């Protein structure tokens, strides 16, 4: 015990003595590396400048959440108000509405949208004809590349109570026409369905690749044990894509505080704002249109912090369950 203590003291005293020379040596060494790779650093220079200006400067700009930002005074000159904007935010009824809507729409996505690509991938994988499979896949990927504006336009046209095809079909079968875009329930259904329609096909790519990576010998073994098709899917395929599901789940949960602006903006209308006003659209209408910069920055900061906490915790949980996390 005593021995080791003195040993530590000795080494630490040695460290202290040699510090100046070691430091300059380190600098020399670093300089040598920088000189050796100077072209690589020249490449990195504009990139670092970019990240500082366009990613880190806005982080500094977050301080206006604690100030009363006025254009004339600038970010630094505006007066500090502490947590006033946060107090106003949490005291307003609107905040709870948009917070609830954001969480609910994302929760529905998690339940109804997230599993669809998994199911589709399992079904596609069972197809035997390679050509047929490829044609189907290529059709299913198309909507991913089409903008929400176009998809919103198509959807509104299809669901229109006066000229939309869907309502003609309903009437053909003797049903009442539905005013999809102004009913809170049907609007939500349409919103979620449009997510499925746009992204489910594209989402299968990763799962298909994961399935293709499963060793065929596992299926052989399952067959020898007399496992039916469904048992094979349950006991071989699903466990084989578990880590892919885990990673995509982390990413999905990380987005739970954020409903993509464009998707909701093109489908929104005043009749359904009670369920369709979310954080991103609220920041746009209050911040950009009504110029309440500080107030909406406070809301944005709140949103970013929650999202960060969520991603970090889900990543930790996934790792604790024995899967590979995001980092």
């Amino acid at each position, binding site marked *: 015990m005593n021995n080791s203590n003195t040993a530590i003291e000795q080494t630490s005293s040695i460290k202290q003595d040699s510090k100046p020379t070691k430091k300059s040596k380190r600098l020399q060494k670093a300089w040598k590396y920088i000189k050796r790779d100077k072209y690589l650093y020249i490449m990195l220079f504009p990139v670092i400048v970019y990240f500082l*200006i366009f990613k880190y400067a806005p982080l500094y700009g977050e301080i206006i959440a604690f100030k009363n930002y006025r254009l004339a005074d600038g970010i630094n000159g505006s007066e500090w108000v502490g947590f006033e904007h946060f107090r106003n935010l949490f005291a307003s009824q609107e905040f709870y509405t948009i917070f609830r809507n954001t969480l609910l729409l994302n929760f529905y996505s998690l339940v109804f949208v997230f599993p669809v690509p998994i199911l589709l991938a399992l079904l596609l994988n069972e197809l035997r004809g390679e050509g047929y499979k490829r044609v189907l896949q290529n059709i299913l990927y198309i909507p991913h590349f089409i903008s929400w504006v176009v998809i919103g336009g*198509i959807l509104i046209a299809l669901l229109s109570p006066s000229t939309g095809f869907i309502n003609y079909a309903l009437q053909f079968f003797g049903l009442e026409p539905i005013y999809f875009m102004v009913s809170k329930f049907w609007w939500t259904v349409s919103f979620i369905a449009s997510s499925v329609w746009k992204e489910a096909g594209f989402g299968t790519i990763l799962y298909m690749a994961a399935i293709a990576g499963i060793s065929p010998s596992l299926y052989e073994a399952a067959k020898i044990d007399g496992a039916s098709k469904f048992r094979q899917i349950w006991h071989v395929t699903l466990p084989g894509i578990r880590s892919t599901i885990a990673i995509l789940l982390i990413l999905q949960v990380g987005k739970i505080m954020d409903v993509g602006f464009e998707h909701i903006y093109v489908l929104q209308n005043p009749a359904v704002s009670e369920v369709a006003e979310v954080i991103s659209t609220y920041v746009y209408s209050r911040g950009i249109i009504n110029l309440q910069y500080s107030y909406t920055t406070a809301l944005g900061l709140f949103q970013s912090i929650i999202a960060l906490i969520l991603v970090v915790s889900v990543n930790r949980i996934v790792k604790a369950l024995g899967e590979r996390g995001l980092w």
Partner: protein
Amino acid sequence: MQKSKTEVFFTWFNIIFLALCAFATLFPFLNVIAVSFSSGRAINAGEVFLWPIEFNFDAYKQIIDDGQLFVAMKNSIIITVVGTALNMVFTILCAYPLSKTRVKGRNVILMGILFTMLFSGGLIPQFLLVGNLGLMNTYWALWLPSLISVYNMFVMKTFFEGLPEELEESASMDGAKDFTILLRIVLPLSMPVIAALTLFYAVGHWNAYQSVLIYIQSSEKLSLTVKLFQMIDLVSPELLDSGEGTENDVVLTEQAIRSAAIFISMLPILAVYPFLQKYFIKGVLIGSVKG
């Protein structure tokens, strides 16, 4: 091979079910195309399903005469081409040095970049920054804030890391500098990832809506998406008032004009889609190797 009855049933169910999924995916597009070529009477009577009824080009004639949609399309092409080129240059400049483990300070820089993906400043601080830099109402406001997608950068870095090191080693013994190695050896070997990321960036620019809505005010500079949304929201009366342009008694409806505008703006993507589909699958898969 002995197959049970349920398995045979499942196989057929699967084939038919997936065909229905594919049809459901295509149907909205087909219906919009059909409506755009149909007469107002047929549209209002709800007769249009998969093919045009009382086929005519009137909606397209109106849009071509009006010309605004094509100005917006030209803008979108400029935004997409220049924006994507800038994206690719900067993504390569970022990913190549960071793919070399020998670069000192690499981990600090990587952490700094990863952090911006997990925690962002939000919309308003970025909006104020763009204003302060004097970029408002210029396309730089669309290009610069999204210059490097961190995710795409990591995809490219992963790809570079997978290239055989010996190639570069032999080149550096010849005295080739890093820039030359990058241009002559690394990039020609990286065509799959370059194609995939070019596609992702280009689609992002082409489909961008919010950034144009926020940063671009002049109506002659608006992109196709914003112009299209204006048309979907409100078909201008001049477009409907067709007068001498139309043949017979065919009445133009808002629906036909909207549908034609939608179809025109999808066309470029649908036209390049068949040529690019093998690249984007590759791009998605490279990205998944290492998150």
